């Protein structure tokens, strides 16, 4: 009944930077286990990792597997390059190669109740075929041992809400089919670690997520999260999260991330935020406010008041600030908004219109566009301010720059050939090469955090969201509406958020997401209308 540190778990959070915020779920305090329940938190050593039949690149055993959740974008490039290649390939191309150097990852232990002689296949979600057959998964309400009032509400209600958030995240991924609430049942506190496999087996669920919530004496909440393989009757993984009541939803997102990464082999993305532009008012005079929300649309709040137009926000890699464009004072320019203090500062002293700002992956530079006398080029400037350095020098409009995750290259759009097309160059502006050659125009290129794909807006009458590889091959359009614009990658490079503009006088903009299959398309709820979404990194 010893408690393990969950902050150092393989899927761990809090391992990115030790100087992370106070909101970091952190570490389960030693000795806070409810002894009668026998709950162990974050016991990494018990996490078996079956071989992925999809992707050799991410197939790692034991603790190493958890890299996917905490890798920096730099190492993600190499680690996950193969992953997306497999994604885009036909399922038949997926190989079943035993992972090299897999440390003795225990195979799922067959329980006595399982049919003899039939080892159930490892519980895995096929991310290519997952859409047609999302995995049935049961996520009963998380019980609490004693109902306690907290600033976030009573713990019994929180337990129900936590399981709903986990179910929502997993459902929205398109890869899981959570059982309807009516098809599950309430579980008792001791049952959390002793699942009723027979009952859940009869429910049709292949996987089972159970958990509990407890209010701690120091005002924090502990949420335990357990994943079970129903047919193999084994526990697959578990984690515990300690959060302040204001961050209770994050515990659910972390739990969903644990389930998602364990069963798909993909990187986590549910515990992340989105900055976007909240829109309201008549089409001729839209009021636009900078806003920030959780990835699922919860906790949306405004950062600016709406007295001037704001456009195209982007997170700094450390998520402490946001760079965006504003018309404050009727001079369009780039500003940095500090999330902690709410202060805003001008980045480039105004000599001309500056726009389309993006942080470099190391956060040291801001890439942007400057329009001067009708000509627009790409520049970069130190994030703290300074003298801009010109990167492109062609007659025409060069804009919409986006760094590769390792910062060595930049993808951008240019109309130097006569219409908007996508180009790639080195980060210093050298070696500019066009990569898009299809019909129509290509705009708003964004480099995937995995490095393997570039998302864009294709303009051929309608605007559609598409992807291609960084050399321009493998173009695939993911959406087919009237006007979809401005894709932004999820932290794991599997989902794109964009905005969809409606037609005509009453046409409004909304946030949408679509995954790489192009099948799982859904609207992201926002309190008002929304545009220009920018997905932030996984939270520390």
């Amino acid at each position, binding site marked *: 009944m010893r408690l393990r540190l969950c902050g150092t778990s393989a899927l761990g959070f809090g391992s990115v930077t030790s100087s992370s915020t106070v909101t970091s779920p952190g570490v389960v305090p030693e000795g806070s286990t409810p002894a009668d329940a026998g709950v162990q938190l974050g016991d990494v050593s018990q996490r078996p990792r079956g071989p992925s039949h999809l992707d050799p690149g991410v197939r790692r055993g034991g603790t190493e597997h958890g890299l996917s959740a905490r890798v920096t974008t730099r190492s993600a490039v190499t680690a996950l390059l193969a992953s997306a290649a497999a994604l885009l390939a036909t399922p038949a191309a997926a190989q079943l190669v035993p992972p090299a150097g897999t440390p003795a990852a225990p195979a799922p232990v067959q329980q006595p109740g399982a049919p003899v002689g039939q080892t159930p296949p490892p519980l895995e979600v096929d991310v290519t075929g997952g859409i047609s057959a999302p995995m049935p998964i049961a996520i009963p309400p998380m019980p609490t041992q004693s109902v306690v009032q907290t600033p976030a509400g009573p713990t019994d209600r929180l337990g129900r809400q936590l399981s709903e958030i986990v179910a929502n995240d997993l459902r929205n991924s398109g890869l899981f089919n959570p059982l309807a609430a009516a098809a599950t049942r309430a579980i008792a506190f001791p049952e959390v670690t002793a699942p009723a496999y027979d009952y859940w087996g009869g429910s049709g669920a292949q996987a089972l997520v159970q958990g509990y919530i407890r209010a701690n004496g120091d005002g924090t909440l502990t949420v335990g999260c357990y994943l079970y393989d129903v047919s193999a009757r084994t526990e697959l993984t578990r984690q515990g999260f300690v959060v302040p009541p204001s961050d209770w939803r994050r515990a659910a997102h972390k739990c969903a991330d644990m389930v998602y990464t364990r069963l798909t082999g993909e990187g986590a993305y549910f515990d992340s935020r989105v900055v976007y532009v909240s829109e309201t008012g008549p089409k001729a005079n839209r009021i636009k406010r900078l806003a920030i929300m959780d990835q699922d649309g919860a906790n949306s709040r405004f950062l600016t008041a709406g007295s001037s137009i704001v456009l195209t926000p982007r997170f700094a890699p450390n998520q402490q600030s946001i760079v965006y464009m504003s018309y404050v004072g009727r001079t369009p320019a780039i500003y940095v908004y500090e999330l902690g203090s709410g202060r805003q500062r001008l980045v480039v002293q105004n000599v001309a*219109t500056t726009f389309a700002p993006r942080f470099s992956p190391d956060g040291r530079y801001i890439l942007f*566009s400057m329009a001067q006398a*009708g000509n627009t080029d790409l520049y970069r400037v130190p994030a703290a301010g300074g003298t801009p350095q010109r990167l492109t020098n062609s007659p025409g409009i060069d*804009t919409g720059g986006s760094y590769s995750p390792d910062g060595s290259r930049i993808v951008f759009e240019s*109309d130097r050939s006569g*219409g908007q097309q996508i180009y790639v160059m080195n980060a210093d502006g050298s070696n500019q090469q066009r990569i898009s050659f299809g019909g129509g125009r290509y705009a708003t290129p964004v480099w995937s955090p995995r490095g393997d794909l570039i998302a864009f807006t294709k*303009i051929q009458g309608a605007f559609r969201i598409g992807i291609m590889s960084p050399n321009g091959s493998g173009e695939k359009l993911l959406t087919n509406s009237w006007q979809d*614009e401005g894709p932004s990658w999820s932290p794991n490079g599997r989902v794109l958020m964009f905005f969809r503009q409606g037609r005509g*006088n009453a046409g409004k903009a909304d946030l949408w997401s679509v995954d790489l299959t192009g099948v799982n398309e859904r609207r992201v709820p926002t309190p008002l209308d929304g545009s220009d979404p920018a997905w932030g990194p996984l939270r520390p």
Partner: protein
Amino acid sequence: MARLTTTLLMATALVATAACSKKRPDVLPPAPGGAPEAPPAPATDPNGGITPGSAADFKRSAQSDTVLFGLDMYDIDGTARGILDSQAAWLTRYPNVRITVEGHADERGTREYNLALGDRRANAAKNYLVARGIAPTRITTISYGKERPVALGSDEESWAQNRRAVTVVVG
């Protein structure tokens, strides 16, 4: 449609002017001896309450404050030349007046590209005025991209009106 826009803009300007004049303590009394059946149209007053050299005067005097462009284009066509010539003539008459040229795009381009395209259009109009003898120091430009349409439909007529450069007198 372009004419209609102009008319609408003029009407808006007149309403705005009227609103301004209302704030003055001494509103012009009805013309003595005039028939009371209709309020005096601006045309009956030589100045119509409009200060020479003002923004309202510009709107009244120039053919239009707006020139239009083709899709993804920024060249100044014959119609636009006529309008800009009339603007240049007025600006020559009031050499101390400064202007801002606002560039706009229709909704069929992406946001950031349209900011650059609006900048192109504003500068195309500015360059024409400069070529007609207006000092470049009197002209600033700003691009609104597709953020501030005047026509709200998603059709050719609306898009044509929104691809524009608007000259605004700033004082």
